[in-house]
């Protein structure tokens, strides 16, 4: 089963997304902020990271940066946030995020993008 790391400090959001994704046979772990996410990433194998931008301790930009600094493993990153500022979104991509989705989310779109990204990852690995 594919394993996704979901990083967001909004508990309700992570809960809902987790149940929705589990129904699609995806395994989801949740981290409340960048710090927790870094610990989770060090401990486990993930096929995808979905992260928010604004979180205490360590924000989404830093998380994306830390993941991309690690040259050995490539994990696709999806940023999901409320922000519409072009500067912020551009910064996400510059740091190495693969896709930016804006809340409110369309769930079918989210799902297809998740599948896309994981498919790509297989291609990269192969």
């Amino acid at each position, binding site marked *: 089963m594919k394993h996704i790391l979901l990083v967001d400090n909004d508990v309700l959001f992570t809960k809902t997304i987790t149940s929705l994704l589990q129904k699609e046979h995806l395994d989801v772990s949740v981290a409340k902020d960048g710090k927790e996410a870094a610990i989770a990433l060090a401990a486990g194998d993930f096929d995808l990271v979905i992260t928010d931008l*604004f*979180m*205490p*301790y*360590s*924000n989404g*930009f*830093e998380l*994306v*940066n830390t993941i991309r600094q690690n040259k050995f493993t490539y994990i696709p990153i999806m940023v999901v946030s*409320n*922000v*519409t*500022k*072009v*500067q*912020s979104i551009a*910064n996400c991509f*510059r*740091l190495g995020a693969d896709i930016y989705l804006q809340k409110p989310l369309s769930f079918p779109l989210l799902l297809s993008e998740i599948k896309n990204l994981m498919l790509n990852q297989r291609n990269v690995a192969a």
Partner: protein
Amino acid sequence: MKHFLDHFFDSYQSVVFVYCCAVYAIYSLLTFFSYLSILANMRRNRIREKLVLIQSPLTPGISIITGAFNEEMTIISNVRSLLNMNYPLFEVIIVNDGSTDKTLEKLIQEFTLTEVEFAYNYFIPSSQIQRIFKSENPACSSLLVIDKINGGCKADAINAGINASSYPYFLNTDVDCILDNDTLIQLIQPFVDDEKRVIATGATLRMVNTCVVDSGVLVEAKVPKEILPIFQEIEYIRSFVLGKMGWNLINAIPNVSGGLGMFDKEIVIKTGGYDPNSFGEDMDMLMRMSKYMLETKQEYAIRYIPQSLCWTEGPSTLKVLKRQRIRWGRGLYQIFSNYYKLLFNPKYKMLGMVVLPYNFIFEFCAPLVELLGIICYIYLIISHLINWPFALILLLFVYSFSVLITLLSIVWDQLVIRRYRFKEVFKLCLFVFLEPIIYHPLVMIFALIGYGNQFLKMKSHWGHMERKGFIQAEKAEVVPIRSSIL
């Protein structure tokens, strides 16, 4: 001589009585006003969804500007927490004010800073800039570090930051303050949501002394354990929740605290920036901004919100507290010696007829009146002239009323803040009873020493530039609401 003294003290008694009644009448009014403006704020927060500010592409950018002088212990975690603000467009400008420790080295190493060729212009005066750094780490692209020669005061450092800032609003804070994640969102709201042009906003400050803080983030808010900080917490609650929120209702806020305030950069630059010679540079700035707005006939507003967004370290030793309060006393003295022309000047509307007169009569003169009162009291006791039942009833009147006012400010505060456990609030309430007896006389004496110092200094060094130490513990400038005990 004795006859004269008897007469003097006799008539002084009535003056004090009238004064005291006037103070309490104003405080009662303020209590009522502050209740109204807290309710209005809560109502507005229920209607206005902050998400709009995060989502909108039009949200204005904000520069967070803070000076750092020998902060190597906390600088990294605090800058990190500033970079983690919950806001879509902002920059963090750290002005290293000639630190003699490893503050700058630590910043360079942690954030992989690199020197950039920055076209810096002195729009407002500040001491000389040496180098400017940006982070090579793209995750910290919003960080800008300015290394400058020590200017001797916070005003100079903030001015240097303003010159390099690129957004229309700036947040002035101290690098060792712990800020709430939502500080920017909360403070920008009055700017975009008020019918008048807002030139400055601020929010409640509290003591961080006993709070649990993890890498620059407040984990648990607690009432301070040490005695002096508890009293200061009480003083701050009264000053912010009652004073500032009360004046907020009629748009007559005298000062936005230097510990946390957001300003309209355009007006600050037009009025020449912070005054490095002022001991109360925050109040001085606000006076000049208000004056400018009135003189150019623009409508303006200064807003406070009741939410606690900033936790600051309060002096825990008498020595540091004394230094801080003497400084504030000098600052207040300077304000009135600089702006006496505005006092009771109907041309300056609210500022000239309400804000300054109130602060002059009931804030600036209070320690003097109190001192005279105490002398009068002692004299009457010694000369057997005192009528004890009357004296005790008057004392009870003064004491009970000031305790009541302070307790009410805690009740109002409880409407907004829900971070304290009940036990903590209870402790706070108990100390309210001691505050007029123990803490208040101290603060009063320090203020008087401050006035005295300033009076003598200004006589001897008129117009002479004076260098002051940038004393780390003397940050948050509040002109506190006093609870006169006489």
